[in-house]
């Protein structure tokens, strides 16, 4: 799922970098506030751990194997914000040092896997595990489902990013400039592999590790759950967050939003059939009504059609998706409280006073310390 350089256009990369940077900034602020210097070695080691996990080949039912990411485990044990950082670090090292994933697409990869993956995993886990006992089987199942959903959410986002490339970025002859497959090809192509192998691998790994922790180090799970139980308002924020993430799909809605035409649209002869079709076969007026004409020049928006000018949109799709406008309003008013409430618990999970800590007893007697 690591997207290499060259598959995404500059504007897509820039947008996703912006989203990733905002998340990193928020995560750093939050981490500094809650635990301080202790988190540095913890996140580092977890990031190294996720790196190693991504190298494992997990045997799956049916004789195949898959690769997991470890995002659910990280989100459950560390919490979503620290998990964002840990996974972003892993992805950065993979890109810089091992050539897995591109540099211009680092923002995209981090956003897909580290940010969206962590929050989806955490949200699903809390939703399903709710207030059940830390060592109950429900938690294991919750972890499995969380991992499965998170991986597929990341994959879906990546496939959407791929799929909108030929739509938005092609040259005058129609040649796609970046990823060449439209949504109807990109989404199934990516999702099939993830709905089966990768998703299963992640589910197996997440369940296995949470079960192991329940058996060998319940204290760790308890500490990460000592954060306040999710309230009904934070669930609402999760729902809104998911909606926000899905809003770019609105760009692809064909046709127009009824009643939102400008004077230019009404004067455009090509637009008449579209308007007629949207208006229960009622023909639009032959010429622009005088009132609309007069008031249409009062204000010129800097971003007409919700797109900066460097994104050249195919001219036969008018971009006034209602969802996008809802998204913008949502972002303006609700983003700050959302980010504030989602992580406002304090945690002190990791004490320094550990000495002769009993090596975690693996069931086959491994106790070699590293």
């Amino acid at each position, binding site marked *: 799922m690591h997207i290499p350089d060259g598959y995404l256009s500059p504007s897509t990369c820039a947008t996703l970098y912006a989203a990733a940077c905002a998340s990193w900034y928020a995560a750093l602020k939050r981490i500094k506030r809650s635990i301080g210097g202790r988190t540095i*070695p913890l996140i580092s080691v977890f990031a190294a751990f996720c790196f190693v996990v991504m190298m494992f080949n997990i045997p799956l039912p049916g004789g195949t194997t898959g690769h997991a990411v470890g995002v659910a485990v990280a989100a459950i044990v560390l919490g979503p914000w620290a998990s964002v950082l840990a996974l972003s670090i892993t992805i950065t090292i993979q890109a810089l040092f091992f050539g897995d994933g591109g540099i211009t697409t680092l923002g995209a990869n981090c956003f897909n896997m580290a940010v969206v993956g962590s929050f989806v995993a955490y949200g699903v886990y809390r939703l399903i595990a709710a207030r059940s006992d830390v060592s109950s089987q429900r938690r294991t199942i919750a972890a499995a489902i969380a991992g499965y959903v998170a991986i597929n959410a990341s994959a879906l986002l990546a496939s959407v990013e791929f799929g909108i490339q030929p739509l938005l970025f092609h040259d005058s002859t129609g040649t796609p400039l970046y990823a060449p497959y439209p949504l109807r090809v990109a989404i199934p192509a990516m999702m099939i592999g993830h709905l089966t192998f990768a998703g299963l691998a992640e589910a197996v790994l997440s369940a296995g590790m949470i079960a192991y922790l329940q058996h060998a180090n319940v*204290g760790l799970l308890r500490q990460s759950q000592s954060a306040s139980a999710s309230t009904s308002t934070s669930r609402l924020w999760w729902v809104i967050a998911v909606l926000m993430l899905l809003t770019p799909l609105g760009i692809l809605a064909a046709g127009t939003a009824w009643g939102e035409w400008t004077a230019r649209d009404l004067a455009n002869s090509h637009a008449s059939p579209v308007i007629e079709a949207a208006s229960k076969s009622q023909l639009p007026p032959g010429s622009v009504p005088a009132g609309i004409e007069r008031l249409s020049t009062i204000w010129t928006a800097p971003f007409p059609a919700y797109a900066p000018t460097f994104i050249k949109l195919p001219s036969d799709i008018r971009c006034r998706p209602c969802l996008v406008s809802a998204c913008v309003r949502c972002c303006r008013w609700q983003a700050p409280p959302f980010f504030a409430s989602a992580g406002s618990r304090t945690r002190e999970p990791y004490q*320094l*006073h*550990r*000495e*002769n*800590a009993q090596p975690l007893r693996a069931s086959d007697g491994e106790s070699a*310390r*590293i």
Partner: protein
Amino acid sequence: MNLAFELKNVKFDYEGIPAVQGLSMQIAQGERIVLLGANGSGKSTLLRLLDGLCFPTAGSLEFAGRQLTEKSLQNETSAFEFRRRVGLVFQNPDVQLFNPTVFDEVAYGPLQLGWSREEVLRRVDEMLAFMSLANIKDRPPFRLSGGEKKKVALASVLVLDPEVLLLDEPTATLDPRSQSQIVDLIQQWKGTAKTVITATHQLEIVEDIADRLFVLEAGSVIASGTPHEILSNGELLLRANLVHAHRHSHGGVVHSHPHLHGHSHHDHDHEH
């Protein structure tokens, strides 16, 4: 006599399990002490208590006449002063080598304590030369051998020139040559103002590096004295799980005695 450390009835519990129980001891400046004990006897915990990495749940611990508590280390100046004056070399060098290269590792302590750039560079180069590590100063830790790692770990603590050096199993897992190098180093400090407290279970090196011994078992001191006194006390060593019992039989009679090296002769009369 200046006391480096004074412990009065120190107790430390870890998650309800007592790791150190009612420990009292006095360590003078310039002494070379060895804490002798098997794994799990509490010697590593004690070293951490002495380094201010964890604090007693009961009792008092004083360093250079002042109480060592969490609060006393909260102030930056006093914390930095303490960290410079007391240095701990961990048992597992991988834990202590967390920087990308050997040079960075040795420079870490001075940088953290806020020394100037020139001072840091000068001292690090000196220390690397002193420990013969200059030719590997740009190497990353995963490319070092066990002996090299231990030397780098030691160098990274010595660069601060601490008054008190705490060593946790410094020669464990080392080959004989590296082991003797470390022992030589510790011997160099005999008679200087440096206080050296070593925790080990290896009896062979103890005589060379100790002026005084404490034997620990299950978090308490069960004996203390000079190396000669302790090392010739076979029963004590057996009890503390520092030696094994050697059994041999002659004509139906089984003799059992602690397996010591050159510290006691076992005369026994036996009849055939």
